[in-house]
């Protein structure tokens, strides 16, 4: 190049292109296909979208706003809101961060990018996809680029979509260390070991802070805040956040039914955040609640409330009312607090120490406990109503149900069995145990029986089986409980109904005769089992435990007063929005009121009642 002197005629060489085909395409008669990964207008699968709002939070340009779509049904327990993202294309920069952060995988981008319209208001629009708005997505022959806009789009024109390897969230939970099944079934060692600080922080880090869990939690805990505080290395703040709504973190951190985790947006494609275990970590990591919380009882209001039942609901109400400055006395027939949580969940799931930790803190606020005091025997309910300014019924379902089949009296009742083992003298079990029932109490009874068998009959083979009316897919117990029971070697006989307990000449139990279940529920969805009488099965066993449910026991209330107590169609105590029953000044909560039958709902009831009692007693 440098040697010869360049000529100005060189540029004429370009003239040869005059006779070639031009490279320019004749738009719009010829169209260029966007690449398969093209980042164009949004698509949103309305069925998968939960309305969690993570897209709104990540959007760097505030182009996304969550708007309410009234025709959509809300289902907080499944983590579904009726909010859907609305995109302002005047602001959107098509970066696609909303796609990478969508935990449900609902939001994608399409390859459409043309919007021809005279009205700039049409820039703001709520995306749907082909599934939910098929009429707007046209096949190639009906599509015209001259009419292209947000409502005139190409069919099957997906562009930039989610790839889980590149998502901005982590789907896998930090695994919870547990005692392996072979080891844990030999003793009552606590099965769940608990997170270390690093593990808890790692798990807390996964939370996307969308708050679907808070809507699902019956007690409405500030989950985002307390999980966030764990991530920020501030367990004290975490505990303070929990105690705003729940004074039983050690108990709930172990046995909560975790409605929150069912709603967690990360659970849509992967594992939900282990919210329950994180609460447990907070409770366990703090030695002394009092120092962390710095709560003091409210100024004395000079009024007293009597609480019947020291279960989760009664304990929580005592806590809430003490903070408001009311005097509180809690009556319970058991020698300690905890109610159903004290006697029900076996030691391997909820050790007594964990209960005492929460109870001791509540007691330290100045709550008076009268244990071993049975209302109706040691003190009458009417007396409580007279002496105290208000009363709270939180007696729970303490009366176990029996199947009533032949020789049912030879069987143990699950609640008595569990109570005796946890806080009583213990029960002797045989080498073959049959548990009737498919709920969580049945699982507790079976797994507890298995441990007792191993301890009472060491070095011999033992068998534990359950029999339930419900089939595998209908079992009322949580999947987790069933899975753990199976890991420990418990045998399941689903869809078999107990018919008769067979006994030998000496009155010793030989086993359980069952018939095949055709269906558990009738056409109206009501519990009404039907059996195939021709198909029978005999389950050998020397110990039989009935775990088919329990009901409340109101015998402590005099007949006259009981007559005035109103019930709902589902045989629950009817309460108003303040938690008050039809008896003036008598409030109620827990299993006798709600149908969830769990601790956290009982706490939620107590929260409502505490406000109700405050209003009632302060005359508001």
């Amino acid at each position, binding site marked *: 190049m440098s040697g010869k002197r360049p000529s100005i005629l060189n540029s004429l*060489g370009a003239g040869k292109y005059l006779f070639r085909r031009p490279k320019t395409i004749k738009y719009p008669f010829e169209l260029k296909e966007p690449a398969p990964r093209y980042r164009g207008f949004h698509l949103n699968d309305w069925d998968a979208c939960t309305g969690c709002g993570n897209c709104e939070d990540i959007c760097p340009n505030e182009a996304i706003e969550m708007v309410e779509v009234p025709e959509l049904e809300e289902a907080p327990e499944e983590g579904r809101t009726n909010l859907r993202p609305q995109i302002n294309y005047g602001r959107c920069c*098509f970066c696609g961060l909303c796609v990478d952060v969508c935990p449900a995988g609902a939001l994608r981008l399409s390859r459409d990018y043309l919007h021809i319209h005279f009205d700039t208001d049409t820039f703001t629009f709520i995306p749907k996809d082909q599934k939910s708005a098929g009429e707007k997505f046209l096949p190639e022959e009906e599509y015209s680029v001259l009419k292209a806009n947000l409502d005139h789009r190409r069919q099957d024109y997906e562009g930039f979509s989610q790839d889980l390897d590149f998502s901005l969230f*982590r789907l896998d939970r930090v695994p919870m260390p547990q005692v392996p099944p072979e080891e844990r079934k030999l003793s009552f060692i606590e099965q769940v070991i608990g997170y270390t600080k690093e593990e808890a922080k790692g798990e807390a880090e996964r939370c996307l802070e969308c708050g679907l869990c808070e809507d699902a939690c019956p007690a409405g805990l500030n989950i985002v805040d307390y999980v966030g505080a764990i991530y920020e290395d501030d367990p004290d703040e975490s505990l303070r956040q929990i105690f705003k709504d729940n004074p039983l973190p050690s108990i709930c951190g172990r046995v909560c039914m975790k409605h929150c985790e069912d709603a967690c947006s990360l659970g849509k494609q992967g594992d939900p955040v282990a919210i329950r275990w994180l609460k447990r970590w907070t409770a366990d990591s703090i030695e002394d609640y009092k120092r962390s919380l710095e709560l003091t009882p409210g100024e004395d209001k000079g009024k007293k409330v009597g609480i019947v039942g020291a279960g989760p609901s009664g304990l929580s109400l005592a806590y809430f009312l003490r903070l408001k400055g009311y005097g509180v006395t809690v009556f319970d027939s058991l020698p300690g607090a905890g109610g159903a949580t004290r006697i029900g969940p076996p030691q391997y799931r909820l050790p007594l120490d964990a209960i005492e930790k929460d109870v001791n803190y509540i007691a330290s606020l100045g709550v008076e406990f009268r244990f071993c005091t049975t209302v109706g025997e040691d003190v009458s309910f009417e007396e409580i109503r007279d002496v105290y300014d208000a009363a709270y019924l939180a007696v729970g379902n303490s009366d176990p149900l029996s199947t009533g089949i032949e020789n049912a009296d030879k069987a143990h009742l699950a609640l008595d069995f569990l109570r005796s083992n946890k806080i009583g003298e213990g029960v002797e079990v045989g080498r073959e145990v049959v548990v009737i029932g498919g709920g969580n109490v049945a699982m507790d009874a079976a797994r507890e029986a298995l441990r007792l068998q191993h301890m009472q009959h060491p070095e011999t083979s033992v068998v534990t089986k359950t029999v339930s009316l419900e089939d595998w897919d209908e079992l009322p117990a949580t999947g987790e409980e069933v899975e753990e029971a199976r890991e420990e070697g418990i045998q399941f006989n689903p869809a078999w109904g107990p018919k008769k307990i067979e006994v030998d000449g000496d009155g010793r139990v030989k086993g359980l005769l069952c018939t095949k279940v055709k269906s558990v529920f009738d056409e109206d969805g009501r519990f009404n089992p039907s059996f195939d009488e021709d198909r029978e099965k005999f389950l050998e066993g020397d110990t039989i435990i009935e775990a088919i449910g329990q009901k409340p026991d109101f015998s402590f209330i005099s007949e006259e007063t009981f007559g005035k107590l109103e019930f709902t169609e589902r045989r629950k105590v009817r309460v108003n929005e303040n938690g008050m029953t039809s008896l003036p000044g008598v409030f109620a909560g827990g299993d006798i009121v709600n149908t969830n039958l769990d601790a956290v709902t009982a706490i939620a009831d107590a929260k409502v009642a505490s406000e109700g009692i405050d209003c009632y007693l302060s005359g508001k």
Partner: protein
Amino acid sequence: MEIISEKKKGGSSRELELYFGPQHLGMIGNFSITLNVRGDRIVRAEANPGYLHRGFEKLMEGRSWIQNFPLVCRVNVIEPGSMEMVYSTAVENLAGVKVPPRGKYIRCIYLELSRIASHLFGLWAYSKTLGFETVGGWAMYHRDLILDLFEELTGGRVYNIYIWPGGVRRDLPEGFEERTKDVLHEIGEKVPDYNQTFFENRLFHERARGVGVVSREEAMNTGGTGQVLRATGLEYDIRKVEPYGVYDEIDWDVPTREDGDAYSRIMVVRDEMIESVHAIFKLFDKLPGGPVYNKIPNPFKWNIPEGETYVRLESSRGELGLYLASDGGRKPYRAHFRTPSYPHGLTILEKALAGESISDTGNIMISLYVTAPEIDR
């Protein structure tokens, strides 16, 4: 046009103040130069930035670490890739995030494609300024072929939003290597035409040789980097002197020229494009398997430990740097870009224009690769 001094003197000895841009046909970008001229000679030039100020550095302080990633590429529309790279590397330095080897290779392939696309854009601007419309058309077409590749790789044509902390945003699509090579071959086959029509054309030589000379000493004293420095014969390229990515794992050369004039700078750009094409082939040859991205923490909770870092890399225009500081929070405490066009477009341009003809204003400005958006960040 305002006449401000020496009104009494008539004819060509009068000194006039003229505005070149922002609304001038010869101006590329939102930028203006105030020229004091006597006759058609420039006596004094003053560069005026500020027409495109968007306050990026301040904006970045209000956005989380991940939200800044679609923003930084907008600092410079000509070559967004290097902006993404400098930001991601700075965040990785502060947060201690590692990039998998394949991710590093893909980043370099993408950066070299960006460099070619950026140089073709520059060539379009330069050749059009000199009146070579045909060459400009070719350059724009070839740039478009690379934008097609970007679209396929990243989903976007200009703002690719592709390099992010931890690696790259998606793996190469199937067949991408072949299609990239096809495009590079297509461009390569056109090099003789480019040479004949433009680089070896006497019109270009006459217009560019000896024009806008920036000496090595001057360049070094005023912060000149990139082609400005390499056109003075100094083999200075950050990819060589302080290698990042995988530039130390492949064999490539730093093209230089000796004269420091517009011609040398444009020829360095030309050689660099060819060198980048070779580099991409070499990068594909050594491309390892495995993941391309190490997941970053949850963006809503991502606190980056307190600290500060300065990252620099060789953009198509010279040294691009980013000072990034974190106070331990979820957003940058301070971000400051060191963009090559800042010294090139302000101090060096003013000096280079002095004594030159008015008609060479655009010529010199574009040969210095002045890109207005990155001066006004």
